[in-house]
């Protein structure tokens, strides 16, 4: 089938996990024999083809805020879709998150094609709906679920959130988890040496994610002194962009600056490498529909200590591939980190279990197959 994917970010432009998700999905769909075009944002209009996936980048314009920017981007995406449609009749459109909703609905209505919509998280969960601006984002998320013929969510709990928040017909909502390209991970980390990142005596606790409230970084920093009490050799490495200065200041206030290293935004290869060499990874999120970091950690056979929220409830299997903590509870985070750091063998065993689970249940070929099933349903009912 001829598929058009719409995403505001696509590698090498990446901010969150949507770019990686669309990259892996598009490659897998192509390898299954489908024709895939991706329309995404680019500073300049350009086209490229990688592994059979045609990527079309279109610019937006200066706008006073992200919503209006996304509205204009949608208009440019739509024009590109009309061009693509003249060459290859688009059979199904797949939009990702609220930023592509205005453009996706425009394409659906303009070309008369069925639309699938993957919602990766909600504004209510990320920031809360507390202003006219955040209400508008929330409304665009609703608009996407209303206009989509089929909705895909990345977490089982998250499906329930979507159903109760936006009230779509239940049969329209499908849970398909995120996936992990283990081949790419292994290639990227083939030459990774622990000695490049840490001393033999150090125990690395690794966090990867945006430095925002949703990721719960402040709870992790709160937990650091209690971990150091038991494991003076622990070193906390935090990778991700965002409110770095704020979190550095919190670490300084707690007196743990010398044990917390904020790397800022780093590339994917470094993230993968750090997951591989870490003794344990940590994800203290207060809201996480899926949490791809769990799979990235398991790919490197590293156990994860994660909040018992959203997707982590499924991906991190308590005391088998990692440990759950109470959400937003620094004592719980410290306790669970201490448990893993105190028993190296158990940690390694959990890491290996995580890898096995990822190999079996989060393979992109499986996920792409489920996704095409949803496309088929959207086309059938159109």
């Amino acid at each position: 089938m001829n598929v058009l994917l719409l995403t505001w970010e696509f590698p090498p432009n990446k901010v969150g996990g949507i770019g990686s998700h669309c990259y892996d999905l598009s490659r897998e769909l192509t390898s299954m024999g489908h024709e895939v075009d991706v329309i995404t944002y680019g500073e300049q209009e350009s086209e490229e083809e990688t592994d059979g996936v045609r990527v079309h980048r279109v610019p937006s314009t200066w706008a006073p805020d992200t919503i209006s920017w996304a509205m204009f981007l949608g208009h440019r995406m739509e024009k590109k879709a009309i061009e693509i449609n003249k060459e290859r009749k688009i059979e199904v459109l797949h939009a990702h998150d609220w930023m592509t909703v205005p453009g996706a609905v425009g394409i659906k209505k303009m070309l008369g094609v069925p639309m699938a919509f993957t919602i990766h998280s909600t504004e209510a969960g990320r920031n809360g709906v507390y202003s006219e601006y955040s209400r508008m984002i929330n409304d665009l998320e609703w608009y996407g679920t209303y206009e989509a013929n089929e909705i895909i969510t990345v977490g089982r709990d998250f499906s329930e959130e979507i159903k109760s928040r936006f009230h779509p017909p239940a049969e329209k909502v499908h849970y398909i988890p995120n996936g992990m390209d283990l081949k790419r991970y292994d290639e990227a980390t083939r030459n990774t040496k622990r000695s490049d990142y840490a001393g033999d005596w150090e125990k690395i606790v690794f966090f990867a994610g945006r430095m925002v409230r949703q990721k719960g970084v402040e709870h992790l920093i709160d937990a650091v002194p209690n971990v150091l009490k038991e494991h003076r050799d622990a070193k906390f490495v935090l990778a991700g962009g965002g409110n770095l200065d704020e979190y550095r200041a919190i670490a300084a206030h707690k007196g743990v600056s010398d044990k917390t290293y904020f790397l800022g935004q780093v590339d994917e290869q470094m993230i993968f490498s750090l997951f591989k060499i870490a003794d344990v990874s940590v994800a203290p999120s207060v809201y996480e529909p899926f949490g791809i970091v769990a799979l990235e950690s398991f790919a490197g056979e590293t156990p994860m200590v994660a909040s018992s929220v959203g997707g982590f409830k499924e991906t991190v299997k308590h005391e088998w591939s990692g440990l759950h903590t109470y959400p937003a509870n620094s004592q719980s985070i410290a306790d669970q980190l201490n448990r893993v750091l105190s028993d190296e063998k158990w940690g390694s065993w959990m890491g290996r279990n995580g890898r096995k689970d990822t190999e079996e249940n989060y393979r992109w070929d499986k996920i792409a197959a489920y996704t095409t099933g949803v496309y088929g349903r959207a086309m059938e009912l159109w």
Partner: protein
Amino acid sequence: MERVLLLCNELSEQNPTGRHCTYLKNYLSEKGIDTETVSFSTNQQDKNVHSARPIVGANNPFNWAMLANNEMKMQGREIHEKKGFDLIHAHDWITAPAGMALSKLTEKPLIFTLHSTENNRGFSNQHSQVVSSIEWWATFEARKVIVDNLDAYNSVKYDLNLPEHKVRLIDPMQFGWQEKVLEEYQKAKKQAVKA
């Protein structure tokens, strides 16, 4: 010229742009040209007038317009599939996204009327830049740009850098203005056939 698709913000006699569209629509009908009109706001009971209202609210007029345009595009596509049309005539930036998209989809020429530009209106709010971008794109993609006053004419020429041959000033206060619009339709259609 058999059928025209008019895209208007408002189709009423309550304000100047609404009146402009209404009079033009009536004139075209009198001349035997089928006119399908899609408007965001109308109280006219006419089978050839279609209302496009967004199904979701917005936090400012720009975002509202972009969402409303999605409905306008759908109406335009459905009209094209059912009856077809020879030309699209969009009015002002507020209908321009639908006009441009429908023109690209159907390969029918776009005539774009600007009653004023964002520069004429003072470029005075936070969305002025993005609105002006849309105006620029629409004047760029239109086969012909019609303005109805000298201020708009100068702004289109100097602010939006449109070549003089692409713009025509048609004063709606003068007798026979609709005839001049029709003249532009005929020219645009001929050019489109040649192209």
